[in-house]
């Protein structure tokens, strides 16, 4: 019984440790990713993250306001280029994908008229099997 309790405690401890490490890793990635939101951009005040496997896709819903330039930064892992992000309008027309630009970790979107968009983020299977995906957004007018 004591042995079972010990095993249970260790297993729970391992799970908690794993969960805490995932958070720590997301935070580290966010810190690295933040460098892409340069001083001209005002952070939108939110932190978006998702844990992805190679066949997963995270879906971010947002409204982009007219007359605004958005800086979208998308990161996973400790180096650039692991995350593919694509921006679609509500009719699922592709507006932008960094896949066409070597998985660039950031891109600016100049928005003329307010529109609702979905940003899909997925790991580049050639570079990562699983990981924390972080999306940061800044804006300027």
């Amino acid at each position, binding site marked *: 019984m004591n042995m079972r309790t010990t095993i249970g405690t260790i297993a729970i401890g391992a799970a908690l440790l794993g969960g805490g490490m995932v958070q720590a890793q*997301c935070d580290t990635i966010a810190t690295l990713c933040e460098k892409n939101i340069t001083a001209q951009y005002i*952070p939108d005040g939110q932190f978006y993250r998702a*844990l992805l496997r190679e066949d997963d896709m995270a879906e971010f819903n947002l409204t982009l306001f007219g007359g605004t330039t958005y800086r979208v930064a998308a990161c996973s892992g400790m*180096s650039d280029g692991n995350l593919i992000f694509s921006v679609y309008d509500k009719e699922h027309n592709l507006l932008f994908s960094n896949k066409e630009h070597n998985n660039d970790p950031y891109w600016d979107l100049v928005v003329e*008229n307010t529109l609702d968009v979905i940003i899909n983020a997925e790991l580049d299977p050639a570079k*990562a099997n699983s990981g*924390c995906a972080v999306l940061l957004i800044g804006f300027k007018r």
Partner: protein
Amino acid sequence: MTLLKTINQALVIAIGLAFAACGGSGQADQVPQADTLAPAPQGPGVVKLGNKIFSIPSPVQTVMLLTEIKAPYAKELALPTDGLSRFATKEKQALALGVCGADLAYAAAYQDEQRSMKTLKAVEQLSGQLNLSNAFSKQLLKGFEANINNRDSLLRFTGRAFRSADMYLKDEQRDDVSALVLAGGWIEGLYLTLGTAGTQVDPRVATLLAEQRHTLENLIELLGQYEAASELHASLKDLAVPYAGVASTYKFVQPTTDAANKTTYINSVTTAEVGPEALQAIINKVRAIRAAIIA
């Protein structure tokens, strides 16, 4: 013996996890990346954080629009910074923190230094009550004070401070608090946008209100996950009724990309209009929700 073996395996897994998280930067060029994590609990397909990932527009952005249309500054609109102790529950404190975040951006955008400092103190107080003091680091707050004369810096500090708080809350798995802070900031942004005008609003303000329809839908879905937000959730569903009267159009136009400058121009054409009756109902409900939040 078998049990001991199992213990050993559990320890190996735990230690292995620890090393997996600590490793990293030096392995940057290896494929796959070093940050291999435990698989997400969801199955293949779309992963939604906390079941949903929504962006709520920053109140900083809303108040910047106000300055652009030269809306008059009305400092009496902001939440008085004394008497914050009346917000006794975590829900009320989280909403009030969001309100104060928007007020902080409002004061900063209109370069009301005195009000900015008072509101910053209110943010500090509420963040302390919510055990968020770690998120609003001293360095960040000092930076705010040091840049009190610089409007753009203050707005940036405000955005960074609230991102830091959002990250902290999500790390702590207090997503409900995070959602309430966002909701409080969003409602306050709308409330400030309405200004002191009674029933008449600038047509650009009316458009701005109409353009919030999708955000309102997102917020309703987001808050619907949390029991702590049930009262506000019901109020926002009421607000959605007049929002159904918003008429919007969308015409896709091919975007243009300037790869050298890492920029894409989104050229699609949209309109959002709201009739006078629905507009009035929206205005009344926004003011009522805000009054309930600060009661």
